[in-house]
């Protein structure tokens, strides 16, 4: 804020524009600089493209999770749905290349169904979303285990793994372009559009901010809530298709991803219990989280310490947001 006595120059506008940048962007830049210092190879197309490719599933999950968080809920069933997508696809396909598109369509339809159930249970049975989606998480895990008999075998055909694995080579400017990066950009752009360029996004915000005033203003509360859960579940199916591509078939492929997506969204400034959230912030949060993991990896720290770092920044980000809200006086 510039006081009236100081003349405003072009620099002031630039500085105030910088102040409006989501803090997670600075965090991301800081982490990337640290990575580059430790490993200059990161600046090679292979380095950063691979980084974005790895971050893509969390970014997509976070873009979906933001809808549920902004509407005032939590979706803890994302990770289990990722696992189920990978396992169900491998079983349904049974190595059959021709069925790929049909199976992808079936998986997306399944994702819609899961989201509808989550949304209806929360809306009509009034079960808190944390419990409803935890129950969904357990049930989906059970389905995945039952279906696969506990020890998933089988593999995913190459044309299915295309989305997670294939890399376009000899691209001008960037040399290589993984399909996963394209999928991430397309999906996140679609989610960004839905959140920030449609009435639905505005209604999701209004619902999470104050459900009573939303209802009294004519917002179709149940439909909006269901839509938020559906978008979150669909993002999990897409993330599952990608992870199936580069991680292969296992029962723990989705383990803990719901927490990563919530952490990413919160880092990106999404307010817990609703009312504010941006898809861009969530995607930046996912990239920052992945950058943190990469950095820890480069530092040679054991992989489990990722969890420690994730837990600390999750608490820190929420505490900081709570502190800022208290100071600004808006409860």
């Amino acid at each position, binding site marked *: 804020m510039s006081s009236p006595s100081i003349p405003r120059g072009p620099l002031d506008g630039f500085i105030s524009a910088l102040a409006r940048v989501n803090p997670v962007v600075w965090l991301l830049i800081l982490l990337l600089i640290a990575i580059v210092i430790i490993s200059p190879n990161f600046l090679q197309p292979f380095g950063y493209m691979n980084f974005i490719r790895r971050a893509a599933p969390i970014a997509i999950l976070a873009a979906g999770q933001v809808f549920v968080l902004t509407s005032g809920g939590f979706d803890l069933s994302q990770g289990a749905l990722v696992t189920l997508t990978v396992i169900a696809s491998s079983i349904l396909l049974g190595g059959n290349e021709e069925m790929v598109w049909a199976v992808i369509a079936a998986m997306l339809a399944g994702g819609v169904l899961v989201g509808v159930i989550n949304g209806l249970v929360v809306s009509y049975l009034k079960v808190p979303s944390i419990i409803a989606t935890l129950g969904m998480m357990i049930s989906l895990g059970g389905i995945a285990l039952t279906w696969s008999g506990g020890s998933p075998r089988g593999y995913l055909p190459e044309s299915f793994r295309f989305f997670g694995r294939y890399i376009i080579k000899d691209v001008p400017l960037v040399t290589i372009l993984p399909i996963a990066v394209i999928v991430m950009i397309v999906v996140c752009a679609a989610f960004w559009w839905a959140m920030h*360029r*449609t009435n*639905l996004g505005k209604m999701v915000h*209004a619902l999470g901010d104050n459900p*009573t*005033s939303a209802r*009294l203003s*004519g917002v179709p509360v149940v439909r909006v809530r269901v839509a938020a859960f559906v978008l979150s579940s669909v993002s999990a199916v897409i993330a599952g298709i990608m992870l199936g591509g580069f991680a292969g078939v296992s029962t723990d492929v989705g383990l803990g991803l719901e927490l990563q997506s919530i952490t990413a969204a919160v880092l990106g400034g999404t307010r817990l219990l609703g009312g504010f959230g941006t898809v861009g912030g969530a995607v930046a949060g996912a990239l920052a989280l992945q950058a943190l993991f990469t950095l820890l990896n480069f530092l040679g720290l054991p992989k489990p310490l990722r969890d420690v770092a994730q837990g600390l920044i999750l608490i820190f980000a929420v505490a900081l947001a709570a502190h800022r809200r208290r100071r600004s006086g808006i409860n």
Partner: protein
Amino acid sequence: MSEEAPVFALENIVKGFPGVMALKGVSFACKAGEVHALVGENGAGKSTLIKVLSGIYQADEGSIILEGVARRFGTPLAALEAGICVIHQEFSLLPDRSVAENIFLGREPTRYGFLDRRRMSAQTEEALKIFGTARKFTGESRVGDLDISEKQMVEIAKALSRDAKVIVMDEPTAALNDTECAVLFTLIDRLRAQGRAIVYITHRMPEIQRLADRVTVLKDGAVTAAFDHVPEPETIVHAMVGRDIDTFYPEAGSRRGPLRLSIKGGGNGRLKAIDLDLYGGEIVGLAGVQGAGRTALAMALFGADPFTEGTVTIDGSPASLRQPRDAIQAGIGLLPGDRKSEGLALSQSVMDNGMLAPRALSGPAAAPESTRYGDTSSMADRFTALDLRAARYSQVIGSLSGGNQQKAIVARWMALSPSVLLFVEPTRGIDVNTKAAIYAQMRTLADAGAAVLLVSSDLPEILGVSDRILVMQDGRITAEFPRGAGEVEVMAAATHGAHEKAAA
């Protein structure tokens, strides 16, 4: 302590809030063994005065003298421990705990470090004795299972067990039926006989006649009359009313338009046999004391707490109003009484709040900038026309004043050009200039053909704005007055116990 000395005295209390002087040097005292009625219209300063007495607010000037000693209460607990108990309309009870556990909350008797439940129930029985045979519950009853009058008894017992010297009752009969009121009055007689000082806040004249020893009337943050006896109701009403009804009320409506809404035999849990016709171009004011059913009627009409019987016709076609969205689509808009909890999405922008209803009724995938009920630039024009003051319309609405927030909601409904608009307490907590703007807006909406229903506890407002005034009591419409009706007669119709049907 001499016989004449008051138990407590508030002396020249001054309390201001940004933009408002709530109390302008109020003095108020109460002796042991007397019931002192505190009356005044909404916004007169009664509740601020009580909050100063009970430590919720600190006075800017003036002093609180309790039993001859000047005191300052920094917290409600300090006032409570000094013997000042306030029984609010919203009880502070734990529904899942027993009566005894509620009475001794936070100060349970212990023995060897453990709760002494035997002593607790003995002391509870002692405290409950005063209710005599009217009490149908025990110290072990769960508070959530009690009805409102019984919960009130628990609150009173809580005060007694703390040996309260001063008991303040804030409109204690608002939610009670006649039998329950009679029980309460007997109880207050007993408390008076015990030598406690009782401050009794009410609007209702018969209760003052029945209970009070003295009466103090507040108006606009100052004492306008203090009686050491109980005067005639007319005298009290005259002291309460007569606030400046100046130029800021709009002209009367020029002509009554076509019938826009009609309710026949409407009823639900709180409303009985509602027959109501609303015409375009007309502002109808709905008056009544708290709990009479004014807000319930608005919420039923809006589908938020729907009618369970009767029929509603809007612009000639029958309407089924099961939820607010139905009502909005049928052409009804509502400005809710509690702006922050029912009207606004506080952390969204001014523009988003204005556009909320237009967007909710347009397709979910459509762009939020232009809806079928107008685009953001026409909304911005509406804001400007209403003189809504914000640095930018993209500013978060939570940081605006109440008046500017209200204008955003007015603009929200104007965009839908509704047939019927319900204003519930539209000017609560709003400064005089903004009030004038909102009244003018109501008139503009009516002149444009809408039927406007105004629900308000501010009687001068109802009288000043309405073309026709309806009075509600006990969930029914009991009286009707034309524009120009006197404050005294309307107040009388709303406060008298008997259901009088005034000539329209």
